């Protein structure tokens, strides 16, 4: 499996240089905006990636079993330039935020403060190796979940039967074993999907999805996505850069300014519920889940959200991206933002079948394999 990265690279976190020994300063000669996918390592890596704004953590699951940290590395104990290795034998999952690296081991969970030189994790929790929670993915941990801001541990009621949890900028989206979706946190941009803008302190079920079974959830800065059992995509939250895949006024305005500055932007703005109107409708906030069409029609296999962009992989191995594109994070060789899902041509042109995608706040990482001809 080969990993590719594109998007924000001011800390050279999007690709690891083959030669080490370069200065660890963000010089302007380095490509800050990588807008075409670049391969991360020359050898195949079997593992997962987690990305924060300034760093990427690559977890190797083969015999090395360590976490490579690329990107902003000042203050990390090794002090060397280039990727830092944290010895993490037995580590099966890793998640990185701007300030912390969280690691899951079979017998414990650890959270390391990346802003200071530490010999020990800043937070730690033992887990019962026998428990049925052993296949929980971070940030879920037995009994709840962890975040990078204090308090680290938050409990979750066991009757929720959490299957996976996506943490957004200031909200959370939970998928249960039964396929139901719960959200909580700030709601000022409609990211909770309950139809309003008020926050929720406790997990609250997204009623609009009741009765439909969801198979996957993702959360971005201010938006939420889930994939239905049939592979269709539901979106809600903020659409200021088109990250929902719905028409965004801000994008039309800038593209019009580039062509004809005198023209009036179309008049109607739908701020809340996305009603159908006869004039062109722009959505800035979608407070209830809406269905997004990817064309040509296809089944979505997995989806991930950055701060203001979204990336989805279809069952046929295509990668679609949309939303904020200023740093090349959409991978279409431009820095324009899009409010409609668009296929990343690079992969099909290289005969690559995309199987996974993970977004950092301003960048995107994809795993792909060579297409097999049967």
């Amino acid at each position, binding site marked *: 499996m080969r990993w590719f990265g594109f998007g924000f690279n001011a800390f050279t976190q999007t690709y690891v240089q083959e030669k080490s020994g370069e200065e660890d300063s963000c010089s*302007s000669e380095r490509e*800050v905006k990588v807008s075409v996918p670049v391969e991360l390592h020359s050898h195949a890596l079997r593992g997962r990636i987690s990305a924060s704004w300034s760093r990427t953590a690559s977890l190797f699951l083969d015999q090395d079993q360590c976490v490579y940290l690329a990107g*902003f590395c000042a203050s990390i104990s090794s002090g060397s330039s280039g990727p830092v290795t944290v010895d993490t034998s037995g580590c099966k999952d890793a998640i990185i935020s701007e*300030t912390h690296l969280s690691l899951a081991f079979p017998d414990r969970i650890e959270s390391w403060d990346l802003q200071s030189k530490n010999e020990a994790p800043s937070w730690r929790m033992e887990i019962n190796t026998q428990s049925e929670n052993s296949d929980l993915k971070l940030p879920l941990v037995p009994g709840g979940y962890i975040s990078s801001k204090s308090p680290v541990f938050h409990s979750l009621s066991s009757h929720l039967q959490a299957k996976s949890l996506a943490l957004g900028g200031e909200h959370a989206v939970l998928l249960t074993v039964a396929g139901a979706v719960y959200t909580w946190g700030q709601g000022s941009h409609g990211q909770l999907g309950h139809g309003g*803008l008020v926050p929720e302190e406790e997990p609250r079920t997204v009623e609009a999805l009741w009765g439909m079974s969801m198979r996957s959830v993702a959360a971005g*800065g*201010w938006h939420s996505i889930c994939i239905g059992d049939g592979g269709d995509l539901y979106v809600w939250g903020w659409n200021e850069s088109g990250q929902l895949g719905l028409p965004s006024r801000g994008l039309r305005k800038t593209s019009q300014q580039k062509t004809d500055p005198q023209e009036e932007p179309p008049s109607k703005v739908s701020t809340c519920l996305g009603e159908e109107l006869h004039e062109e409708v722009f959505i800035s906030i979608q407070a209830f889940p809406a269905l997004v069409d990817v064309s040509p029609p296809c089944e979505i296999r997995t989806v991930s959200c950055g*701060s*203001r962009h979204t990336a989805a992989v279809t069952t046929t191995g295509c990668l679609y991206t949309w939303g904020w594109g200023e740093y090349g994070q959409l991978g279409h060789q431009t820095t324009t933002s899009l409010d409609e899902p668009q296929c990343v041509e690079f992969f099909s042109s290289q005969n690559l079948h995309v199987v996974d995608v993970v977004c950092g706040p301003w960048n995107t990482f994809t795993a792909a394999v060579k297409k097999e001809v049967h």
Partner: protein
Amino acid sequence: MTSLWLKISAALPPNEEQFPLTFSDKVPLSVVEMLKLARKQLYGNTTSASQILNAQIIVDYSWERLNMGTWRDVDKEWRRVYSYGCLFKAVALCRENPLEEEILQAIRTCDMALLMGAAIMENLLQVIVCILQTGIRKLAKEEDNSENIEAKKRRIASPHVGLIKEDLSVPRIKCPSLESFSANHLLPLKPVILEGIIDHWPAFNKHPWSIEYLRSVAGCRTVPVEVGSRYTDEDWSQTLLTVNEFIDKYILNKIPELKEDIRIPDYCCLGEGDEDDITVNAWFGPQGTVSPLHQDPQQNFLAQVVGSKYIRLYSPEDTAKLYPHDSQLLHNTSQVEVENPDAERFPEFVKAPYQECVLQPGDVLFIPVKHWHYVRSLEVSFSVSFWWS
């Protein structure tokens, strides 16, 4: 344009060492690193393009932080970071013989920091934007006087005779003493129109506020604009426009220069707060602009400079008859359309007693704290409000 850069350099600290960059630990080290890089580039030889790119990264990241949580919760540190980012960007734009478009972009950038950021380096951004504005004015050609609307003419007789019912009209008083205003109006919280107290404003004599004057002094500055007939409408929104764009689009056809033309009413000293705590806002809009019936948590002096406004006042005692919205966001706003009330949905509204007036240039209306008020401009109008406690 190198003289522009000389003036900007003179306003900045002389070297990197004297350029302060300290932040609390709320700001991650990676962001501090970008800020330090930007500072290093400012005093170094890097290209303007590279500096703008780095500044934009800081602006983009802090902008995201500013949009988290409610406005009150946003950590002041992030507003400072945003201001620094805008500062580095604006300065970089003006470094290499900037064209008019680049100077305008730099002004817009400074305005964004002034609107959303926090003051840094002793209000350096304000100083920079003034330098940039003089740079623009030198480039601008002389405009025609054709758009001049006469602000100097102050009406002696009200042209809206018959609009106000005599027995409901807000009382008027000319230049009361502090003591009598305090005793008769402030303490009992009774609305009154103060006449003659702003005649000395330069906005009336030295720099009469006309469209042409506004363009010359503030045309390229960015201001928040409310779009929509009333803020309770579903398609109401706020946007940011330059004063020129706003005038072009809506009139025709947070700026301190305009602040020089007005003065804080002396009566504000009767409050408990400092002069620094007084919020001054300028409201500029076309005929027909309506502010739906609402209340504010502070005392308000509404001074009319250009044009006239119809205003109706309801006492907070009658709040129940005014049907405020239930929601958290709008609970200080009435659901009733004052000049076209729905008697079926809001039967008690007609029973609520009120006072009304037409505010003319030179008038100042005292709106006591929490007093409900409804405003409709009768012509192109420019008012200044002073919120104080």
